[in-house]
């Protein structure tokens, strides 16, 4: 290993990645597998067809304990946490006073506390941000001694149910505490691929054993960060720092669905004035949209979006090739006038001006599990 990698952190699954032939790269301060011998395309397709196992232990797992933790969290996020039912999960974001997004995260109400999962690249600043505002009667605990993996794909629930009965009956965005291979695990029916599946929080010292057991099931392959990115892009899901940042509000980011009625009426979160004004006026300068290039050439992050008269009307924030979609897909920001689906636009890819159009997302059908009523 080269010297520049010596400061990088390793997850509890690092030696397993090496054993599996993972190609390790620096990511958010960690050495993570970008792909395994199966390759990005093969890993992507395997996840869409069967089940893929992702190490996401670099993400932050945090617990907030104490009376009124939910109410206090609502002073930092626009999501409705107070009305979140026990063992239910909600997607929301930390906002700043200008309405920009500091990070996006998943919040779970558990029996006695609040459990959250935040992005790897933001976890230190998120924790500092929460501690700065934390009242004395609440306690913030970082679960640094737990690994986190995601098992995703149409056969993922069937596989995990072999280890813990009933996991396949959990609704999308719900949570349970279970035993897998004798380890105390937290399982959450959510993910970052657009597929059904669970995220599994495992005590670090049992992580390799649990993951090896899951990988021993014939449907399961280890999947790296490369396919994780193409899967989430096809699913229309945001990558923090790219598709949403401190400079974009949840409304500009097309995440208004994550702000419930009561929060819209009451406000009380950082940047509420700006965010609620954008919501009520229906006006934003720019909007996150899907973009479909007409040809075969992928348009990457940073590609300028032009109108027919060569005026720059936006920029691509994530772009690449969608293996399941079967062609290039992208998302980015355009000015509001050009944000309607079907609007023809142009992409400046190197020396060529390529045809494209604004498109609705996701680019592939979401495959989340909804319990029959």
């Amino acid at each position, binding site marked *: 290993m080269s010297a520049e990698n010596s400061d990088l952190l390793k997850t509890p699954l690092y030696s397993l990645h090496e054993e599996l032939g993972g190609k390790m790269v620096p990511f958010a301060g960690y050495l993570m597998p*970008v*792909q395994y011998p199966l*390759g*990005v*395309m*093969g890993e*992507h397709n395997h996840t869409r067809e069967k089940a893929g196992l992702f190490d996401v232990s670099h993400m932050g797992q945090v617990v907030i304990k104490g009376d009124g933790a939910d109410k206090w969290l609502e002073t930092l996020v626009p999501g409705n946490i107070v009305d979140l039912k026990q063992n239910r999960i909600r997607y929301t974001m930390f906002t700043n006073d200008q309405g920009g997004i500091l990070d996006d995260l998943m919040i779970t109400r558990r029996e006695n506390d609040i459990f959250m999962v935040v992005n790897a690249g933001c976890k230190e600043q998120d924790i500092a941000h929460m501690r700065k505002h934390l009242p004395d009667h609440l306690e913030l605990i970082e679960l640094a001694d737990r690994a986190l993996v995601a098992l995703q794909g149409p056969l993922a629930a069937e596989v995990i149910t072999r280890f813990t009965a009933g996991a396949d009956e959990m609704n999308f965005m719900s949570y349970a505490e279970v035993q897998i291979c004798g380890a105390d695990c937290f399982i959450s029916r959510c993910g970052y691929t657009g597929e059904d599946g669970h995220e599994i929080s495992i005590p670090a010292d049992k992580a390799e054993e649990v993951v090896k057991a899951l990988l021993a099931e014939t449907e399961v392959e280890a999947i790296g960060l*490369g*396919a994780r*990115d*193409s899967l989430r892009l096809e699913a229309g899901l945001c990558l923090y720092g790219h598709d949403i940042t401190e400079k974009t509000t949840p409304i500009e980011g097309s995440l208004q669905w994550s702000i419930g009625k009561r929060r819209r009426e009451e406000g009380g979160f950082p940047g509420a004035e700006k965010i609620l004004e954008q919501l009520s006026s229906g006006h934003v300068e720019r909007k996150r949209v899907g973009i479909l290039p007409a040809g*075969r*050439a*992928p348009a*990457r992050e940073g590609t300028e979006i032009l109108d027919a008269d060569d005026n720059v009307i936006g920029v691509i924030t994530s772009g*690449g*090739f969608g*293996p399941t979609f079967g062609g*290039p897909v992208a998302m980015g920001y355009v000015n509001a006038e050009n944000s309607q689906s079907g609007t023809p636009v142009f992409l400046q890819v*190197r020396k*060529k001006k390529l045809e494209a159009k604004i498109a609705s997302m996701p680019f592939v059908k979401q495959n989340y599990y909804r319990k029959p009523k």
Partner: protein
Amino acid sequence: MTIYYSEDHEWINVEAGVGTVGISEYAQNALGDIVFVEVPEVGDDYAKGDEVAVVESVKAASEIYSPVTGEITAINEALEENAALVNSSPNGDGWFFKIKISDENELEGLMDADGYKKFIAGLE
């Protein structure tokens, strides 16, 4: 006919003053699944070292540099529909373009097959 290799992992197969250019087995393996190749246009001139083509994998775009100075005389149109040919046959059906070589002395700066084999062994 002689095959030369560049340190940027292109190969050039020279026959009667015209070189056929592609990327090596090592390069296709490092790039992974190739989904798109942007080839130059016939009639365009390139200097040695110019960016002449772009290879896109699922992950990223990578530039391909012209191993010699010359004029493009043909492109591999099959790549437009099937860029994966570069993965399946980097030294054959996955060729990129043909270039009429301006100065064959430039070939002396390239490696032969044995030299390239040693070069990539040194990269491991």
